């Protein structure tokens, strides 16, 4: 089946440009539907990255493609903030976490460089229509719970390959209590269960968000008689903060079981958890407190607009005063490219999305994944800590 691409494409890799250049498919089907975002290894920490970034700028200028340069933000956040993701959009990104945009009722999925190169040149791609899986989430989660805890709990249940190729659809009475920021976190990590895409329905929360950028009247909802290959149900009212321990994302335990594990570094940021809500929660914990001496604490807002809002509201001040290092918007240490790699035997608690061996540095370093609340509490104590101590139960 061939689908004509109607939505924009988020981000790309220099390998795609190389493929296009070497193959004679050196063209762009519609410059208005292609976006370039320089977010990985940005600003360039070495000459190779600088060359790759230059390649992107040159290509974008030649074909009239909109390019978001160093410091503007991480691609999925940029696409969302600029109104490119909306119900029914088809979005391809040369990054596996493109699924983030399912929070906007868009079909968004990650592909490789060849796919992106062909899509940019031809405006077409190939997709297998995925089977759908219903994720029924019920009841109101406690105030200290965020999207990260919910998606980690789901991945614990389904496993790292539990949803391979399939589309994840969120349903249930809990949805109305879940913010757009948290929805993006949940869709972001659906790929950690192997899913092709994840979709939230177009409800009030989404409509209000889209109205702010002038998008109204389009709604995506599941058919009342839709069939699902599988249904998973979760009650969120008793959900506790969740942490994934290395080496896989489905090795999830309640924070209480891992309390006390000493950490060398704390990272709050990434396309998973670098949004306003994330830093607001972290700041509630960090206000008036210091991070544990000897622990490197890194905060990376996912876009410049988030950075500016945090700056304006004094939240960056709170973070800096507590001892956090605050960086410009970039993917940062999540992919082990720069801004805080780990040495042999070191441990990080990170709000990012993957804890595979070696991803953030040395192969013998350890990555624990958690919510911004759990990461901030851990920063204060220098070991994995329960955020309920600071946020109340």
């Amino acid at each position: 089946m061939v689908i004509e691409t109607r939505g924009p494409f988020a981000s790309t890799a220099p390998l795609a440009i190389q493929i296009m250049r070497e193959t004679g498919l050196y063209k762009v089907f519609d410059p208005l539907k292609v976006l370039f975002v320089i977010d990985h290894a940005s600003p360039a920490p070495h000459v190779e990255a600088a060359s790759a970034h230059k390649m992107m700028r040159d290509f974008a200028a030649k074909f009239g493609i909109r390019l978001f340069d160093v410091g503007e933000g991480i691609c999925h956040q940029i696409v969302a903030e600029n109104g490119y993701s909306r119900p029914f959009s088809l979005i391809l990104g040369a990054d596996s976490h493109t699924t983030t945009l399912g929070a906007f009722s868009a079909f968004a999925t990650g592909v490789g460089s060849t796919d992106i190169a062909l899509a940019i040149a031809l405006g077409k791609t190939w997709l297998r229509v995925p089977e759908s899986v219903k994720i029924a989430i019920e009841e109101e989660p406690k105030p200290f719970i965020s999207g990260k805890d919910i998606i980690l709990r789901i991945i614990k249940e389904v496993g790292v390959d539990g949803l391979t190729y399939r589309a994840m659809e969120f349903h249930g009475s809990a949805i109305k209590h879940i913010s757009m920021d948290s929805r993006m976190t949940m869709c972001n990590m659906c790929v950690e269960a192997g899913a092709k895409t994840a979709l939230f329905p177009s409800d009030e929360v989404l409509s209000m968000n889209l109205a702010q950028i002038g998008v109204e009247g389009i709604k995506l909802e599941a058919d009342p008689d839709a069939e699902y290959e599988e249904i998973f149900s979760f009650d969120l009212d008793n959900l506790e903060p969740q942490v994934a321990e290395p080496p896989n994302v489905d090795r999830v335990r309640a924070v209480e079981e891992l309390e006390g594990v000493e950490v060398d570094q704390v990272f709050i940021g990434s396309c998973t958890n670098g949004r306003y809500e994330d830093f607001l929660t972290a700041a509630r914990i960090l206000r008036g407190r210091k991070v544990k001496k000897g622990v490197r604490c890194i905060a990376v807002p996912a876009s410049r607009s988030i950075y500016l809002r945090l700056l304006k509201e004094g939240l960056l001040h709170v973070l800096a005063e507590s001892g956090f290092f605050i960086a410009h918007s970039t993917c940062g240490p999540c992919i082990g490219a720069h801004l805080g790699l780990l040495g042999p035997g070191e441990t990080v608690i990170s709000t990012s999305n993957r804890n595979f061996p070696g991803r953030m540095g040395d192969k013998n370093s350890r990555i624990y994944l958690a919510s911004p609340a759990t990461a901030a509490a851990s920063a204060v104590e220098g070991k994995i800590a329960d955020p309920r101590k600071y946020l109340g139960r």
Partner: protein
Amino acid sequence: MIDLEIRGRAWKLGDDISTDHIISGKYKFRAISNIQEMVPHVLEELIPDFYLKVRRGDIIVAGKNFGMGSSREHAPLLLKILGISAVVAESFARIFFRNSINIGLPVITASEVPRATEEGDVLSVDIEKGILINMSKGVKESIRPYPREFLEILECGGIVEYVRKHGDLPWRGTK
């Protein structure tokens, strides 16, 4: 041009082999311009000096969810550059699967043969007929045949080569 009949020596890996295992992200961003520089790091955490030990035509045999994680196309591409003729696994992560088809690396989903295979066994695959055999162990398995379009892509050596030759994707009839 890729042969649809493959025979090779097996390298055995486990479940959930990620693209970070195949080529860690920290190398990807150091050597975008020259993929050859990444060759010594392929699978280095699992099989030290894999790039020196691997022989042209070898087949990787793995468990569930091979290629999970990042969308980096460098992962299947580097396996192809090292001469891997096919990857046989109990299941594949979807981006790795499509990247492999796109670059012309046959990826075969099977169950009995990967479970029976030990390192060094000789495997043969007939992609067109859908037959997979572990010749060392005498285990034979039918595999789901590829759709016509996948075969056309593999015969051209990859989707880019296909598009250069035919001017469009191999899927026709729908729009």
